[in-house]
């Protein structure tokens, strides 16, 4: 009997078109645009000037506070522009544009060619927790599952709490996405090293890697890689969405429920993505900051869907062009998976750390069905992994009843989208719940500020 979480959940079609495909390294771009808000928390501060020369891996924007992180350039080159550019969602943001000359480009290629470890495993494993966290912090590593929460914050538990288990998220429950699957196949040794380093940094002596049972090859590769380390357990999990949700994964693996409003650390768990573990390994072993990541470019009508290792800052359009260009029948382009990803307004924007996939849906799959009246079937209540009543929250939110939303625990919602997915009347349930969350969150913040 495979482990899984026990409340709610849905079974969207897997549609993993690029499963088990190897990772393709894309060519180092000659130009990147880097934004300064690629993580949750304070926007990083850039002190470059136009005309400055930067080298690959150099910090171009510094963390602005504890919950923030450094941002590095993936290419060497000259700062040609420092101005406002549009993000993929159309919001103007401060960016820096870096262009590589021929010499810069060649030296970068040489550096990649001659990459060698700066620390061997023994040295790495003898580093103290603080040293490791410092390296992780300096390397600008954030949670690569999509939430982009700075990793060092998770590794430094608040005073009074102690973690006893590291849970590594290789679940990848989102349909279409296969980027974590791909690195588990290609870089299983590195991931295991990263997990051991993370365990050392977090001072825990047990780690569990949760992987959905639909990736038997990944489970096998990881089990083989982890066979030398008895503290790491590879746990196959039953296929169910949203298994990769932090709270759901903790429950599936340990049976512990994170109390409502609490953090994973309150039940002694730290959750990190496999891609994060890989980034940690790269940072410690090779001294490489987070400059690239694997992105699944996929979609039913994409010509060359695949898992691409992309320097962060590469133009989304050029990445799509490598995958065979934008299909002619495209109706929607999504950053991330179809359940929780965000639809973009423009692809002339840079990739950022949190982009796990680029999904192009044809027009026929892009539009929602016309909503019908709620038939009170309770499917949303059944599907909600947090035990909420989505139909109620959506209605309360629609009629501005924010206090009632709060009483009904709207803030517990993890925005997994199971309710909207399952609703036979195609009602925009999550749209309204998100609005309620937003309003209630603002109200709670205001109350806190007032009471201070």
């Amino acid at each position, binding site marked *: 009997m495979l482990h899984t979480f026990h409340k709610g959940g849905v079974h969207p079609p897997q549609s993993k078109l690029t499963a088990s495909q190897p990772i393709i390294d894309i060519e180092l771009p000659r130009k990147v645009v880097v934004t300064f808000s690629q993580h949750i928390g304070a926007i990083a501060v850039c002190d470059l000037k136009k005309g400055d020369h930067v080298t690959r891996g150099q910090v171009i924007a510094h963390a602005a506070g504890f919950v923030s992180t450094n941002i590095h350039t993936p290419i060497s080159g000259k700062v040609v522009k420092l101005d406002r550019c549009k993000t993929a969602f159309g919001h103007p943001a401060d960016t820096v544009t870096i262009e590589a000359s021929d010499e810069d480009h060649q030296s970068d290629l040489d550096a990649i060619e001659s990459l060698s470890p700066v620390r061997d495993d023994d040295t790495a494993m003898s580093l103290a927790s603080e040293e490791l966290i410092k390296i992780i912090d300096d390397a600008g590593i954030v949670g690569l599952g999509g939430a982009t929460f700075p990793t060092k914050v998770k590794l430094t538990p608040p005073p009074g709490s102690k973690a006893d288990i590291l849970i590594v998220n290789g679940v990848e429950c989102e349909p279409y996405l296969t980027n974590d699957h791909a690195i588990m196949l290609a870089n299983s040794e590195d991931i295991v090293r990263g997990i051991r380093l993370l365990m050392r940094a977090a001072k825990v002596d047990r780690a569990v890697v949760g992987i959905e049972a639909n990736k038997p090859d990944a489970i096998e590769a990881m089990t083989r890689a982890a066979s030398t380390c008895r503290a790491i357990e590879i746990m196959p999990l039953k296929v169910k969405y949203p298994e990769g949700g932090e709270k759901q994964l903790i429950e599936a693996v340990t049976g512990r429920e994170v109390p*409502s409003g609490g953090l994973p650390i309150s039940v002694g768990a730290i959750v990190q993505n496999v891609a994060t573990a890989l980034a940690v390994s790269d940072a410690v072993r090779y001294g490489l900051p987070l400059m690239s990541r694997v992105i699944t470019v996929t979609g039913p009508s994409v010509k060359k869907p695949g898992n691409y290792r992309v320097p962060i800052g590469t133009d989304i359009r050029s990445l799509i062009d490598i995958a065979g260009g934008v299909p002619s029948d495209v109706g929607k382009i999504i950053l991330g998976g179809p359940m929780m990803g965000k*639809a973009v307004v423009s692809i002339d924007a840079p990739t950022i750390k949190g982009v796990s996939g680029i999904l192009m849906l044809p027009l026929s799959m*892009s539009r929602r069905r016309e909503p019908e009246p709620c038939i009170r079937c309770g499917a949303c*209540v059944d599907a909600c992994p947090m035990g909420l009543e989505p139909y109620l929250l959506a209605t309360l939110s629609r009629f501005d009843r924010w206090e009632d939303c709060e009483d009904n*625990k709207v803030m*517990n919602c993890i925005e997994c989208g199971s309710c*909207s*997915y399952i609703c036979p009347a195609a009602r925009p349930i999550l749209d309204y719940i998100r609005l309620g969350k937003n309003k209630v969150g603002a109200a709670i913040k205001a109350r806190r500020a007032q009471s201070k």
Partner: protein
Amino acid sequence: MNQLLTISASPHIHTSRTVSWCMWQVIVALIPALVCAFYFFGIGAAIVIVTSILGCIATEYFITRYLLRAKPTIANGSAILTGLLLAFNLPSNLPVWIVLIGAVVAIGIGKMPFGGLGCNIFNPALVGRVFLLISFPAQMTTWPLPGENAWNYVDATTGATILGAMKLGELSPDGIDLWAKAVGFAGGSLGEVGAVALLLGLAYMLARRIISWHIPVSIIATVALFSWAIGADPLVQVMSGGLLLGAIFMATDYVTSPMCHRGMLIYGVMIGVITVVIRQWGAYPEGMSFAILIMNGFTPLINRYIKPRRFGERRSSI
């Protein structure tokens, strides 16, 4: 990329289930019972069912088209389902005009005044049935004997239902042939005969996850336990009357039943208790319709106070 990109909030994919799909699945689950009804009641069943469905569709069409001036909502299948369920609650020799009145009341009073599909408080088919039961008690309680009247409609030979006979003291519980009841040789309304057919429907709906087990199981278990506790034969109580029909198809109506599993259990248990109370101590031999309607009234209250267990409410195991 000539067309505009669509933007919308996640999720971007959607289940293939629709409202009308759900309705049609329930209708499919009723097919075994429908076959039974045709087999046992012949032409009478056909006339009552067709009249009831057409009556419901016509009423809904008229109201949406001419009173509300909105897009007709016939296509979602809910009016057809209401019509079918109403017919299943009627005897097969009921005159057409009474059936029509039932259909008009079911849709015109039970459903549309509240705002149509999804807004009604009471199960429309039961509103229609109870209205007829109170208005035309004589016609509504003469039951043609199944199997003997395949080609008779109005002047069929009639008999009492098991529960009716027991109420009048004409029948002792020992004299009931349960096997006959299971396959449908006792009198009753269209959908009451053939317990096996109804259970087939239940199995289908559970397998397709149209409904959850909570309501039917809690009703049936409560009725069995409660009647056993007061000394009635639990099997007879469960198999007879509209209990199975009600527990499987009427009480599980999406709109008028509670939303969360805890609420469903309370709702089911209360329906079971009220049914047995009415059967045992009330004036009517049959209490299922009233029990469901009463609990329909309590559904908003149950939804208000019975909440699902929130994730993170349980004490963690460390």
